[in-house]
Each structure stands twice: as C-alpha cells, then as structure tokens.
C-alpha cells in the first residue's frame, strides 16, 4: 500500500490533473483505510478552493488603500502621457 506521504502527493496532483488508473486505485485503497488521509483530502480541497477564490477575486484581505505617494506618481505619469498624446 502507498504511504500517507505518497497519498498526500496524489491528493495534490488530483487537483491539477486526472490521475492514471493505478494512481486512482492506490489512492482509493489508501483512503479507504486511512481516516487522516481522507480528512486531509477534504481539507486540501478547502484550501485550494479558498486560495482560488482569494487569488481570483478582488481580494479583500489587503485593505490598505494605495499609498498617497504612489497615487501622486501615477497621476504625474498619466499627466505626462496626456500631454504627450
């Protein structure tokens, strides 16, 4: 039987691609008898979903506004571009 370490690798791989028949069987058999790895698979899916939502959304975590100096620099660049058109 594959180890928990290998099962964790396959669990992660499954989030990116379809597993081969042997990999699927090995993982399925391992999970059937390993509670921690079944739990890990569910938690890994949660982590992947959450990071997917976080990274693809307008991400509310970093709630600091744009620094004022940065805004002024961008404004100044836009003004230059406007004059150059």
């Amino acid at each position, binding site marked *: 039987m594959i180890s928990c370490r290998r099962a964790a690798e396959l669990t*992660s791989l499954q989030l990116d691609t379809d597993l081969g028949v042997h990999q699927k069987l090995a993982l399925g058999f391992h999970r059937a008898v390993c509670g921690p790895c079944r739990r890990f698979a569910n938690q890994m899916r949660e982590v992947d979903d*959450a990071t997917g939502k976080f990274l693809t959304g307008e991400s509310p975590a970093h709630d600091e506004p744009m620094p004022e100096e940065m805004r002024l620099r*961008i404004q100044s660049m836009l003004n230059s571009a406007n004059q150059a058109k």
Partner: protein
Amino acid sequence: MRRNLAPTEPEAFEPSLWLEQHGDSLYRYAINKVRRPEIAEDLVQETLLAAWKGRERFHKRSQVRTWLVAILKRKVIDWLRSHIREQKHTIKLEDSWLNDQFTSLGKWREKPTEWSPQSPEAEVHREEFWQVLYGCLGKLPPRLRDVFSLRQLDEKSSEEVCQELGISASNLWVMLHRSRMRLWRCLNVNWYNNPDISTEKEPS
C-alpha cells in the same frame, strides 16, 4: 466626494478619474498577487494606460472597474510568468520542511485532525480568514508563491503553463504540492488552531 460617472460619459474615460475612483481596488488586487508594492504600482499604471489606449474596445454595458480589473489580471499573469521564467533555477530535490511532516516510513508525523466549524464561508469570519490566508501565502517561499498564484490565476491547462514557464509537468506539480502543503499546515495552525493529535488508527 468621488463622482460615479457612467462609462458612456466622455470624462469617464479619463485615466485620472479611473485612478481616483478605482485606484485603491486596482492596487489591492495587484498587491495581493504580486506582493511587491513597486511592481503593483507599475502594473496599475500600465493598466490605466492600456485601458486608455484601448478605450474604443470598452463595452458600454460593462462596469469600468470590471473592465480595468480584467486588464490588470492579464498584466499580473504576464508579470508572474516572465518573473518565474527569469528566476528559473533547478528545483531542489529535497524539501526539508516537507520531509519533516512525515516519518521515514512516510506516515504523518502529526496527523490531520478535524477542523473546527469556524468555516471561512461564514460572513462573520470571512474577512479575518482572508487576512490569515494572505499571511500564509506570504510565508511561502517567493518562487513557490509566484508559481502557485499563476496556476490559480491563469485559466490555462497545466501543460500550457509548463510550456510557457519552460518547466516540466513534474516540476510544476512538485512546486504546487509543496505550496499546498505549506498553506494547509499554516491554516491548520493559524486559523483552525487545532494541534491535537488524532487517535485514529494508521493504516498498516
């Protein structure tokens, strides 16, 4: 007070106005992905310029912010891709952090335990959860974080991503696995706060 102009009004196409109305959102979007303020600044600036140049293609039924974010997203993906390519180096075969998670026989050193019902989906916890997740992403080694962010953002297949980055599929998967394991462990400790050891029997 900031004005909310309809995109059909001529002033709505002024990049300065976009900066005023959407600058904070664009900056937050970029900094969460690239985590380097100077790069986020460049990307926001390029986005406003690109939007200005391409304003003819703006669909009047769309929201200006949605349109700007879509442009910025492409710029973030392009930056991540070229940065990863530039930083290309061989991936370490050994990952001592990952090795420490398992015994020499490949069993969990600390088995995954139940996560408490403090679901990140619940409104009351969501914002706090994002903060914790942002912190966990920040703890990833930069290269792993960049690859992981690109994989999440880019809707292309793994094969296409590998081609663009010039890396093998197995290298990509190793990096994604290392990232996920670290994120999982970090959330386990910092969000679910559940260090107790499971008493379930290990498979033989």
